[in-house]
């Protein structure tokens, strides 16, 4: 079927998934102890004050009524107001979203650049020195906790030598780009390590295949073998892993955003959970779910381009 039909079909399949997501998140956050009113009013709130504000904010209504009101809002694309900040959720999220997207984008770029060269080289020079070094490096990168790496990089490249700002997002686009380099690099290390190993293994496996020997015996030169045969075959599992990691990056951005003082969605998410800001938590989770699903669809489509044996159904 054509790509367009496939996309439409997938989108229709998403709807029941999204409904389940909204139900789950809606009820889960209300079932855990702690409530937004107590957090809002603080330690000095008397039980009386808590009760009054709960009623005022409509949080005393039966839970299914609150759910229906919420779904009604969703259908009109109204995400409601943040319980904590009082402004519309969409206003709160929109800019922070941009920050997280930019961070994720650069993280992907760094991950791909680093892992592509190292993984490919390691695969071709299997068991020789470059391979040993690269595999060791991947292991080290995987073992280091992100916040620690982030801090070390900040101290080295922002405080001792001021190439980059010490966290923060900046106020102009050139400043934004500069601000996002260290955090994106820090976040990319783990993914780069995993991808490098994956690509290395993919290359090694592909090199063993019969068709490679056949291509050589046909008389094809090395570089066209590499380009047309080896890389394309090795990339399939690489892309799968990359798309899975992108979903992980959205969640993992919380740590990076905190260390580098980037006001992104991750930081908003953790803040909203602490303050039980139901409206924001719901909205962010739903958006995350939508993103992950979209990335999955795009990955499936990418397969069809990479591997002619795959057809979209």
């Amino acid at each position: 079927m054509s790509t367009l039909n496939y996309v439409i079909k997938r989108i229709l399949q998403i709807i029941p998934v999204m409904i389940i997501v909204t139900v789950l998140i809606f009820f889960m956050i209300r079932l855990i102890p702690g409530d937004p009113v107590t957090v809002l009013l603080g330690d000095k709130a008397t039980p009386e004050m808590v009760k009054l504000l709960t009623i005022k904010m409509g949080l005393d209504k039966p839970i299914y009524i609150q759910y229906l009101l919420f779904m009604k809002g969703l259908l009109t694309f109204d995400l409601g107001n943040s319980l904590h900040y009082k402004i519309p959720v969409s206003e709160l999220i929109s800019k922070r979203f941009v920050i997280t997207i930019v961070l994720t984008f650069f993280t992907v770029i760094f991950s791909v650049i680093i892992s592509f060269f190292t993984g490919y080289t390691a695969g071709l020079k299997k068991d020789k020195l470059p391979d040993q070094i690269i595999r060791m490096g991947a292991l080290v990168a995987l073992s280091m906790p992100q916040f620690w790496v982030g801090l070390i990089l900040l101290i080295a490249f922002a405080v001792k030598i001021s190439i980059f700002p010490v966290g923060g997002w900046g106020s102009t686009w050139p400043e934004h780009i500069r601000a996002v380099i260290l955090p994106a690099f820090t976040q990319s290390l783990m993914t780069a390590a995993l991808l490098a190993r994956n690509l290395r293994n993919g290359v090694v496996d592909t090199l063993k295949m019969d068709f490679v020997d056949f291509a050589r015996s046909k008389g094809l030169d090395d570089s066209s073998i590499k380009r047309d045969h080896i890389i394309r075959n090795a990339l399939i599992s690489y892309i799968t892993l990359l798309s899975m990691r992108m979903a992980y990056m959205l969640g993992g951005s919380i740590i990076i955003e905190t260390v580098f003082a980037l006001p992104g969605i991750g930081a908003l998410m953790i803040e909203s959970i602490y303050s039980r800001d139901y409206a924001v938590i719901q909205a962010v989770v739903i958006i995350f779910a939508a993103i992950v699903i979209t990335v999955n669809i795009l990955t499936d489509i990418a397969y069809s381009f990479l591997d002619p044996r795959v057809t979209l159904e």
Partner: protein
Amino acid sequence: MKKVLGYLLIVALVVGLSVGCSPSTTPETPPETDAGSGERQIAKQIVIGRIQDSDDLDPVTQDGNVNIWMFNLVLEGLLKTNDEGTAMEPQLAESWKVSDDGMTYTFKLRPGIKFSDGTAVTGEDWVWSLKRAAAEDSTWRFAAADIVDVTAPDDLTLVVTITEPLASMEANFAMFNMTVQSKAYYDKVGQEVYSAGPIGTGPYVFSEWKRGEYINLVKNAYYHEEGLPKTEEIKFVVIPDDNTRALQLEAGQIDIATFVPFTKMTELDAKDNIVASGIPSTESRYIVLNNNNPKFANQKARLAFQYATDKKQMVDFILSGYGEVATSYAPKSGMFFNSELKDYGFDPEKAKALLAEAGYPDGMDVELLVRAGNVVYEQMAVILKEQWAKSGINVSILSLESATAVQMYRDMKHEITLSGWTNDMSDPSQQAVYVFDIKASHNYYTDWESERAVELMNAGVRELDPIKREAIYMELQQIHFDEVPMIPVFYSSYPVAMSTSIEGFVQTPLGNYRFENLVKYID
């Protein structure tokens, strides 16, 4: 394929080079020559880093120090506390008279005061502001709750009548929610925009708020004090990570860092360009015992915990010396502090003896509830576990996420927990309610009760004779000290570190920032 990779590499290099080679970050401080010869050059903007963003800047609806501490910069009231936090001073009221029955306050207002948008402050604004403070269901309603009526016979006179004579009324008038705000502005923009910042008569104005990122304040062009404030812009940036905040100060990206982790204070102070100081505060920390638990029913058992705790060690380890051992529940820098009370001291043998007398000769097993994520509480818990072990008290620490932990102790489901207090007004009556009126907060989540204390608490807020009033609060502190429903551990300070080029940083013990004279020298 190679070509694509090649292009990617070139793009990456170009991006990296162009970004890496741009001039390194400098704080946004274009020099501004001060008028007048011989005066030093000061910066146009000062950047302050803090741990959390504000959430609601409407003084009447919001709650939280993140908002409150900024209000002194923008809003002014009839009275204000002095910088030391010990007494009340006139602010926008020039003078006032109290009627003989103590129930009518007549204020004479300073003439010529304008809001930051240039409009004049009218009697109507005062009436509206105070009535709104009394009406809104906020935690701070108590400051205005006793007001019967507010009228403004003319724009320079304000008459406030209250239900009964109250000793705390002056302190109430100095509260941040009793400040004058522009009614016209509220009517024009509505509640939602108002929560992004009201208009007042103070030295600064809220000018821009990027939530989660920063709040920008600019000089109030219509401020009534000539030549003040000295600095044009103050920017509060949000840097949640403690280490990152300290690093930004080191790198000069921010000029002042607040809530510096105590363990970092000495390290930062040692640097040539930074000075770290513990600002006197009204912040206290307590070990809260759930008196409903049979283990703590006997006063001797509770007293044992006093002897089992080495408070000096806590001050040294946790606060790095930036604080003091606590005796009374009341903060040392507040009114009527009972300095007669002497710390029980650290005496594990005495603790064991007391426990034995209370029926626990073999020691006691207890569960200590801690709010995860709060560095001070977490450190306290760990140190207490070790200290109490010497007295035969076996601690299991229950570390829960903040809102969950709060819910637990609000429901009185804890055995022991850790809590704290900061005064919002200098008058001791605010705190007394939480410590002695069980309806407010289970008497600080202890559920301990004392009829005599309730009597005194009610008398204290009404006693107009300062000598008699002092006696009341002295006795209250003594009762609490003797009964030990909870154990005050230490009075901490506000840990602030700043560049050595900063001068004029003022923070009252209540936490409010006063920046009229704050400057950063750039020569």
